């Protein structure tokens, strides 16, 4: 199989984008860890790092990373029922219920974190 199989059709291409969202998420988490390390280093280090994060390249990176993270969340929550069939007794819980509660949990967690941080 040639290495460019994922360019052949749209479904493969979207699959590849979904795989690559994890790269942006991982890089963001490394930058977050550095932020924590800079906070530990003191106020000047913290401010200098925020200034670095405000440069155009880093700003652009975070916008792309946010899009990647949203794409990951949406696909992860939407595909979850396909990965695990949740059953209540004999009855399989409908996909829409699982997807709906995933999105509800996402909103609750996001609002809670924003409330704590802001």
């Amino acid at each position: 199989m040639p290495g460019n199989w994922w360019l052949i059709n749209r479904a493969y291409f979207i699959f590849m984008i979904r795989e690559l969202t994890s790269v942006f998420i991982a890089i963001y988490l490394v930058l977050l860890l550095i932020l924590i390390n800079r906070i530990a280093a003191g106020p000047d280090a913290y401010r200098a790092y925020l200034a670095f994060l405000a440069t155009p390249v880093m700003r652009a990176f975070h916008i792309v990373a946010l899009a990647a993270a949203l794409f990951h969340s949406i696909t992860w929550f939407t595909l979850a029922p396909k990965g695990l069939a949740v059953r209540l007794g004999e009855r399989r819980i409908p996909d829409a219920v699982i997807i709906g509660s995933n999105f509800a949990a996402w909103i609750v967690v996001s609002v809670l974190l924003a409330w704590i941080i802001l």
Partner: protein
Amino acid sequence: MKHSNEPIWWSLFAAGGVVAALMVPVLTLLTGIAAPAGWAREAFTYDRVAALVSHPLSRLLLFVVISLPLFHWAHRFRFTLVDLGLKGARSTIAIACYGAAVVGTVLAAFVLISL
């Protein structure tokens, strides 16, 4: 039957997928975009951020948020590289990817403990 570590890697991948899906978008927006742009300035003053981050529960949460999605990345990236044609280097790729996630986890633990 040959002993396999695959269930462990898969569990870390799945847990990391959930953690990333629930928390990474809001964190990216707040720490990656809002704080550097100077939005909600009073929320991101040094004293406030330092106090928030050093709380034991925050440290625990940050450890989970940083570590598990790194294993999620490792698992996905490993198979992506193999799918892109690097089949010959299968085990080297696995060691490099999971190894990077382990290094990230150790660094995260170190940074968060020494806060």
